[in-house]
Each structure stands twice: as structure tokens, then as C-alpha cells.
């Protein structure tokens, strides 16, 4: 064994820079994003999908996916799943509606209480998982039903209906509501309209105002959560612990990583993301419905898997998950713009999920050198 000089093993082929650059979790999502945009520019380019209004349309839908995908991504890298995300969205929305409309408490109190409640449920999920050692799949499946059941039960019991409206009126003048339901950059869009760069209303009470009059806070939340999660994951000590907890919990424990705490915190973060989604939605619609968020947990997981994360944990990328969410939003809205039957979206989801998982397995083999 030589201890000096570079030892080159003659059996290892030189790996090209290109190949190295390609071997990253986001690869599939990047390729997918380019393909999806190319497809819709060709087939729906003149349908208004890429004017200001169209862009806002699919960006908003994508942003919704991004918010829950970021949470699901961090949790999946830490080695766990949360199937209760969709029910949590319905539950959080209903909680805000009941506290603000039925109880007549200020909206900001309703929002803060709901966040506390959701994060507590997330912590409970995580606590049960790490204490019992049961698969998170089962534990959170239980909460999928528990939370959805309560979401239907309480409004029926209290208001004798499953949709509670009137939140917009309550939220008017509230200091916290605009953080979720407001828009930013209004003056910039007015300026764009004056420069005649974007379309304005031709008739009606808002004639002369730009059709797109600001960026919804939903998009700001999506970008903010994505950037923070990405930095935490790739640039901090805590991020290393998240990878370690999902990569091999026992090996991580041996070197002193607080694996249980990390996992519980990731469950709480996922709950927080679901709550952000729900709050933005409730503020936008002005109402809460008991069926909100249905199937969102699977859409979040699919976006994360398209983004290159491994279902087994320990590997993945927030940027990838966000791109996966963008693919979703663009395809869902793009099919509408292209005039394609929207039920085909489900077919697309299934197909792309399958391709993503196959590609990821292949990439993992290259990384770990398995054969």
C-alpha cells in the first residue's frame, strides 16, 4: 500500500464532467420541466398560457404544490412519510373558519391557534412514530382518517353544514390575514400596465386596471419555504442530521445525532407547510370546506419523488421537489389551456411517477456503486 502520490486504480474509468453533473437528484425533474414547457409552448403557445394572466394562473397552482412538496421532501429525506397532509389541509381550514366565523374571534387569533394545533398534531404523529417504531405510513394513515373525520364532524355538529363561508368579511382589516391572502407588487404591475406591457381590463368598474394586479402571497410563501428548506438541508449542521436520520438512523445514533428529535421536527414542519397551504386557500376562497385537500398527500409525495428523493430516505433535493411541483402545476393548467380533457391529468401523474421512480433507482445505483 503506498501512502504517497496519487494512486489511480486502472480499473476505474474516468468519469466525465458531464456524467458527474448529471448524477444529481434533480436531474429527472430538470429534464421533465424542460420537456413539459417545450410541449406546452408548442401545443398551447397561442392559447394565452404564457401571457401575464396565464403565467399567474399556473404559477399559483404550482405554488400550492410547492408548499406541501417542500414539507413532504424534508420529511422523506429524514426517512418518514406523512399521509395525513391532505386531511390536515381540510382540518386547518375548518379550524380557521370555526374559530373566526362561528366563535367570532379575530382572524389572526384563528390563524395562530390553527398553526399551533396543526404543529401539535404533527409532533404527535412524529412522537408516535419514533416511540413505537411503527412505519410512519401506518401511523399517518390513521391520522388521515382521524383528521378528516373531525373536519366533517365539527362543522356539521356546530353549523349543520360542511362548508363555512364569510371568512373574507371577517378578514377585512385583519393584520395577519394579508400575509396569507394578500398580494404584493401592485404598483409594479400598474407600471407595467401603463407601459402597455401587460393587459388591462377594457370594460367594467375596474377598466384601465391591470388584469394581473400583484403576486399572490401564496407564491411568496412557496418561494420562501423552498429557499429556506434548501439552505437548511444543504448548508447547515441540522441539514446533515436530516440526511443522516433518513440514511441510516442507527449509524447516526451511534455518532450522537439526535435522530428522534430530528424526525419529530420534520413531522412538525410538514404540518406547518400543510397549514400554510390551508390558510392561503381559505383566505383566497373566503370559505372552508370539509373536502379540501383531498389526495394532496399523494400529490406531494409524487412531486417529491419526481424531484429525485428516494422513498427509503436519506437522499433528495428540495429544488427537485419544487420542480416536480412546477411540472404538476404546469401540466394541470396546461391541459386546460390546450383544451385537453382534464381527467387525463391523473393518467399523466401515474405515468410520470413510474418513470421518475425508475430513473431514481438507476441514479442511486450509480451513486452508491451498487450493481
Amino acid at each position, binding site marked *: *500500500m*503506498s*501512502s504517497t502520490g*496519487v*494512486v489511480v486504480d486502472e480499473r476505474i474509468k474516468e468519469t466525465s464532467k458531464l456524467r458527474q453533473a448529471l448524477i444529481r437528484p434533480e436531474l429527472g425533474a430538470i429534464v421533465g420541466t424542460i420537456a413539459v414547457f417545450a410541449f406546452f409552448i408548442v401545443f398551447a403557445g397561442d392559447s394565452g398560457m404564457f401571457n401575464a394572466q396565464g403565467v399567474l394562473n399556473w404559477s399559483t397552482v404550482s405554488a400550492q404544490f410547492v408548499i406541501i412538496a417542500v414539507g413532504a421532501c424534508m420529511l422523506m429525506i429524514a426517512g418518514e412519510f406523512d399521509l395525513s397532509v391532505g386531511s390536515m389541509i381540510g382540518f386547518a381550514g375548518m379550524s380557521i373558519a370555526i374559530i373566526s366565523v362561528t366563535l367570532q374571534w379575530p382572524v389572526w387569533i384563528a390563524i395562530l391557534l390553527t398553526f399551533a394545533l396543526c404543529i401539535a398534531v404533527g409532533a404527535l404523529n412524529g412522537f408516535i412514530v419514533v416511540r413505537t417504531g411503527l412505519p410512519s405510513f401506518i401511523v399517518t394513515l390513521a391520522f388521515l382518517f382521524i383528521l378528516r373525520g373531525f373536519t366533517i364532524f365539527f362543522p356539521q355538529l356546530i353549523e349543520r353544514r360542511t362548508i363555512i363561508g364569510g371568512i373574507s368579511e371577517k378578514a377585512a382589516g385583519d393584520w395577519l390575514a394579508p400575509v396569507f391572502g394578500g398580494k404584493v407588487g401592485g404598483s409594479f404591475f400598474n407600471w407595467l400596465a401603463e407601459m402597455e406591457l401587460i393587459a388591462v381590463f377594457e370594460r367594467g368598474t375596474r377598466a384601465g386596471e391591470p388584469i394581473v394586479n400583484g403576486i399572490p402571497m401564496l407564491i411568496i410563501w412557496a418561494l420562501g419555504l423552498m429557499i429556506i428548506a434548501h439552505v437548511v438541508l444543504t*448548508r*447547515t*449542521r441540522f*441539514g*446533515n*442530521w436530516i*440526511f*443522516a436520520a433518513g*440514511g*441510516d438512523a*442507527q*449509524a*447516526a445514533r*451511534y*455518532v*450522537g*445525532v439526535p435522530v428522534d428529535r430530528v424526525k419529530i421536527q420534520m413531522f412538525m414542519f410538514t404540518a406547518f407547510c400543510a397549514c400554510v397551504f390551508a390558510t392561503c386557500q381559505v383566505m383566497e376562497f373566503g370559505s372552508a370546506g370539509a373536502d379540501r385537500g383531498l389526495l394532496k398527500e399523494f400529490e406531494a409525495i409524487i412531486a417529491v419523488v419526481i424531484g429525485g428523493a*428516494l422513498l427509503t430516505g*436519506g*437522499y433528495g433535493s428540495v429544488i427537485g421537489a419544487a420542480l416536480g411541483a412546477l411540472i404538476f402545476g404546469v401540466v394541470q393548467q396546461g391541459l386546460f389551456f390546450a383544451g385537453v380533457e382534464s381527467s387525463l391529468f391523473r393518467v399523466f401523474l401515474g405515468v410520470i411517477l413510474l418513470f421518475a421512480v425508475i430513473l431514481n433507482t438507476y441514479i*442511486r445505483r450509480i*451513486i*452508491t*456503486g*451498487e450493481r
Partner: protein
Amino acid sequence: MGSFDHNPIIEMRNIEKHFGPVIALNGVSFDVRPGECHCLLGDNGAGKSTFIKTMAGVHKPTKGEILFEGRQMSFDSPRDAMEAGIATVYQDLAMIPLMSVTRNFWMGREPVKRFGPLMFMDFKTANEVTMSEMRKMGINLRSPDQAVGTLSGGERQTVAIARAVHFGAKVLILDEPTSALGVRQTANVLSTIDKVRKTGIGIVFITHNVRHALAVGDRFTVLNRGKTLGTAQRGQITPEELQDLMAGGQEMVALEGSLGGTV
């Protein structure tokens, strides 16, 4: 041997460990001095794993005492033992294959850099130290971002050993580091053990391969059925004697006869 002038870093006296009705260890005594490689041999089920886990703070002994640097000690957790300077490299749980060498090397003890109230992991320092520590052990990494999964079994063991040495281990416990390796990789790991020993660290080398033990060992202790069969110094024992002790004497003689003396 010069190292024998020193007092032991860790001394285990008459350690007993019972798991319910099972007596896994029935009075084992063992010590490690700075700069020596003390081999712990024994067949499967002899109690090697239980014994090193007791030393590493995973199990608490039912009876017996542990002296660390002359003082009586009781470790409540692996973390306790680690803080004291007892590092263990487990055979298969040492590394996380999907993570980079640097991330593995620093796992649990990441260096941080402050930017105002924000703390980031200091990847520049982490990468540099990882590269240089690995170079000291004779491994030239392509890049510190390389996933551990791309390393060979021997290289993974070396990363784990380098990590323990870097973080100030005084005693390094190696749990069958060569059992799953090929000839060449075994030689690499054995030479790493030799390098580490020369820096004054005491090594506990667990193996059931007599040849590997004799290649680097200064002293040899054989465990059988939860008891110490004895400790021998280098040069006082032949490979055959060691083999017989491990396997429990007579049965082995009979077996060897039937196999033409090849075992």
C-alpha cells in the same frame, strides 16, 4: 515492547454480564495500553460483541469494574464513552452510503461558521480536513463529495477509523473490520491499524481470524463461552495454539484430522 511501560488506558476487571437467565460474560478481564494493538479473539458466540459493547457503553456490566485512566468509571451511554475517548467502529453500521465522505466524516460533530445569528456548516474546513486525514491513512479520494457508497469496504472502514482518530479517540475498538474484506483490502486495513497504533492510540481488534490477529497484534486474548482463556504476548504463542484455544481444543484436533490439517 516500549508500550508496555505505560499504564493501561482502560482496564476491565472480572466483567460479568447477564441477560436474564443467560450469562453472556462470566468474568472477563482485559486491558489496553497506549500504542498497542490488543486482539480479542473468539469463535462466534464467545461473547466478543457483548464484551466490546460493555466497553463502548452500550451495555452496563452486571458485575465487575471498569477503570479508565486509573479511575473507576461507569458509562451510561455510548455517547459517554465516546466523550471519554472510546471510539467504536462497527462492522456494518459505520457509514451512510448515500452521503458524501465529508458528511459522513463529520456526522454529529459538524463544524459551523457564523453569519450574524445564522450558523452554517463550514464545508471548506470540513472538506480540507477530511481530505488530509484520509491522505494520512493512505487513501486519496477523488473528491470529498464522493458518496461513501462508491468506496470499497476497506476504504469505508478506513474513513471510520480516520474519523475516530481525528476526534481524539484514546481507545479504538474495531469490531471485525476485516471479516468481509478481500485479501488486498484486508492488508490495507491492517496497515491502517499499524499507523494508528504508532500515534499512541490503544487498539482493541476483534477478529476470529488468527492470521489477521498475528499480523498486527501485540497481545492476544481469547474468549470462549463468556470467559477469558488467557492472554498471550506476541512471540509467546504459535498460530496453531491460538487457533486451538479459540475453537476449544480437542474437537478442533479431531476436525483438523478429518480435513487433512488445512483449517
